[in-house]
């Protein structure tokens, strides 16, 4: 559709770190390479004290250009403390 290069996980990850001051980012390319579908986990303390809707809006706004070019975007967002709790509960790292 667009003449630009397709979005890569690496680029998206860097963009998220920069724009959302994330200290941890996990980007999963669900598209099979076409750069159209991503699932991301974002850990940043800018989410502290914000409810879920506000957090998702912060991400959507920070990535509005990127999201408008792709077909599917799934996000899970945590503060550092919540992320530590997740890791404790589910043993992932």
């Amino acid at each position: 559709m667009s003449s630009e290069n397709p979005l890569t996980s690496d680029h998206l990850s860097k963009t998220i770190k920069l724009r959302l001051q994330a200290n941890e980012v996990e980007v999963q390319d669900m598209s099979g390479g076409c750069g159209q579908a991503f699932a991301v986990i974002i850990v940043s303390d800018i989410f502290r004290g914000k409810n879920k809707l506000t957090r998702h809006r912060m991400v959507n706004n920070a990535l509005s250009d990127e999201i408008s070019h792709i077909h599917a975007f799934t996000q899970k967002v945590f503060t550092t403390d919540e992320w530590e709790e997740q890791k404790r509960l589910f043993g992932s790292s």
Partner: protein
Amino acid sequence: MSEETKKAIHEAVTSAPVVLFMKGTPEAPACGFSRATIQILGQQGVDPAKFAAYNVLEDPDLRTGIKEYSDWPTIPQLYVSSEFVGGCDIIMSMAQSGELAEVLEKANALVPEEEEPAKGESAKEEPTKEEKA
């Protein structure tokens, strides 16, 4: 977005206690995220009489307009009591935490629980019907 589209969306949002803007229909969702959302609403026990779904694929103005109206970039989008709740990720996580049930209950949008048979209150109009799973 034209005033006309804005007005049409406003009417859609207020047309039922629970309103979903989705790709496809509840019977035939056209996208995995819309399908997942419909499944969740079903599991929560949303009363079909209090639910309205709008297929954005049938209406290009709606498809672009609803994103602007809600300030939300993706479909599906859920409204409860005319208030924007979120997209698929939020709905899923609210379903897991129990928040979604609270929101739906507050909106009085759930199928009423079956009454205890021993209680004095009698069902008025509806004949009792047993549903076997």
